């Protein structure tokens, strides 16, 4: 049996798990290509217009895979931690795909709760039974998959010579070099150090989250806001670059909460959609880096000609 795994959305975080699990079940695993123009165009064509870029691209991955496999793995990830969600679109992903793309093979529709191994095993059992009748084999494959997943390390940590910025954003934007137009390479070329949310200690994050009035219920919210606020408080970074896709519901809240917290601290928000031009990204990155450099050199030496119109304290 051939099992197709689309390389979109949270694939970048959990690919060892899915790949190892299905390989150990004796299935042939077929993955889609890295995101490219063709996949994006296909996704934009079939997906509902209002969806965000990563979801559209995911549709593209599914569309390229659909004729090559007998079972498509479209994980309906309901949550990664208890009492937390990811995004409503993840919960309805199999339906979105199934009703947008005609001629699909069988797809996985069972909800996947990643809270603990027991819940994950439930998903594996329900999905694995489509491939093999042996529950023993599924259990073995599951153990292997968990082990492979635990070995995976994600996130980017590159100390820079001059300064470090936090690269914030959803993992599927940070890890997809086509969608973010190689932003990591671009910053590396400018000698800027990078750190992503994975490298903020959960203790420091927790401290920041306690200041919020309401406990965040999105995993991305908790991680991104916590990490950005922690890095800012610890003065570990010189600025924040936030990669976000247009019309992302979560980001509309997270970005503004971070902004409220950090105030005048340098923060660049890059909005990505299927029309984004690379020149615009380059210009904004350059301007941001220039600004950071000048800020380092001339701090406290800025002329404050006239009063700042809106903000009384820091003219920067």
């Amino acid at each position, binding site marked *: 049996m051939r099992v197709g795994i689309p390389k979109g959305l949270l694939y970048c975080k959990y690919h060892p798990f899915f790949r190892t699990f299905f390989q150990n079940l004796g299935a042939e695993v077929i993955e889609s290509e890295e995101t490219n123009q063709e996949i994006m165009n296909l996704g934009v064509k079939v*997906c*509902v217009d*209002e*969806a965000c870029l990563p979801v559209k691209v995911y549709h593209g991955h599914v569309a390229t895979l659909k004729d090559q496999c007998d079972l498509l793995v479209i994980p*309906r990830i*309901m949550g990664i931690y208890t009492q*937390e*969600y*990811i*995004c*409503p*679109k993840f*919960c*309805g992903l199999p*339906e*979105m795909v199934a*009703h*947008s793309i005609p001629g699909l093979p069988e797809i996985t529709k069972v*909800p996947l709760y990643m809270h603990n191994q027991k819940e994950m095993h439930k998903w594996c059992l329900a999905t694995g039974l489509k491939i093999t009748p042996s529950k023993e084999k599924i259990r073995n494959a599951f153990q292997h998959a968990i082990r492979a997943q635990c070995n995976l390390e994600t996130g980017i940590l590159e100390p820079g010579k001059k300064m470090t910025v936090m690269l914030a954003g959803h993992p599927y934007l940070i890890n997809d070099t086509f969608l973010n137009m190689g932003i990591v390479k671009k910053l590396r070329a400018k000698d800027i150090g990078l750190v992503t949310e994975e490298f903020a200690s959960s203790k420091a994050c927790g401290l920041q989250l306690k200041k*919020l*009035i*309401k406990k*965040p*219920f*999105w995993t991305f*919210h908790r991680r991104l806001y916590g990490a950005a606020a922690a890095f800012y408080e610890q003065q570990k970074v010189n600025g924040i670059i936030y990669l976000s896709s*247009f*019309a*992302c*519901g*979560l*980001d*509309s*809240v997270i*970005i*503004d*909460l971070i902004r*409220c917290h950090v105030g005048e601290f340098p923060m660049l928000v890059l909005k990505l959609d299927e029309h984004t031009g690379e020149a615009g990204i380059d210009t904004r990155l350059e301007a941001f880096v220039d600004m950071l450099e000048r800020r380092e050199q001339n701090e406290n030496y800025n002329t404050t000609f006239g009063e700042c119109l809106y903000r009384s304290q820091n003219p920067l």
Partner: protein
Amino acid sequence: MKITIPHLGNVYIAVKILFDSLGLDYVIPPLNNREALLWGSKYSPEEICLPFKLMIGNYLAGIHEGADTVLLVGSCGPCRFGEYCELQMKILQQLGHKIDFIVLDPVKSIGLCELLHRMHRVGAYSKKTRMRKLQSLFMAYKAMTLLDDIEKEAHWRAGFEKKPGECKRLLNQCRNAVYSCNDPEKALALLQEYLETIQKIPVSPERNPIKISIIGEIYTVIEPFTNLYIEDVLMDMGISTSRHLTPSWWVKDMLLKTMRLNSRELLKASDEYLPLYIGGHARECIGEAVLAAEEGMDGAIQIFPMGCMPEIVSKAILPSISRQKNLPILTLVVDEMTGEAGYMTRIEAFTDLLERRRGHVYIGS
């Protein structure tokens, strides 16, 4: 303490009855208008959904009239609505307003104790007896139910009425009369009276008007300003509309959810297309579309604010329902930039289509 609330359809009338009965000091901000939208979009995050922006506009208007506390209901995910209070508090703080938020979250997430505690924060200011406070809550709920019933009757009877415009006139008259009445008991009696009057509007049962079901995101379907008064427009066209999501439905849904007894019929209808709860009211939207087809409605109109995550999922599913159940569905996405002309053109074209589907116009004629 001076309490204010954000607007949602006719909720302000029920809330007024509640506060009047409790003897609290309150401000009802002016009904949603361009100004609320203007100030709201100015101070809100760019990409947040429309209800957020209008609510900010409501608060600012309330604060202008001296309010210092906001009473708001909440949720705990996965839709953005749950994060409203956090962000709204911060925005108002940054604007230099000292304002207190009382957020009534669902029992499931904060526990009954905390919910009662938060309700007590409002109730503590009332000098009435505990019995009277409970009574006030029931009165407000009853008023909401009556208002929803009146609206439902008016929207449905608009297609059958003998004298065009009668339903709409009565509905507006009812809202004004009840709102200007400061005695809660009298207001309830008035509502009862209006319900009876509206049920007696002369109709011609032989008429067979176009019937449209209004589905979609709860705020934009209930709040007439956001959907450019679509129900009034359809009433003027002599079209009967039905809508399942109402404020009183929401209250009932919230209460029954703890026992998983909420809207069985809708959820059962949605099982085939969306078997899981994904936040917001996406499942309800799907269920309503299926029910609309089964109840013999001519079409359905889905309305949601730009960027609404759960409704995007349901929008992806609706074309399948439309094909399989033979039900035309029009989707309207609204935000602060919605232009009236384009919007009305689409509604007119859609109603034309529904009329022609009935065979009034023959192919080639």
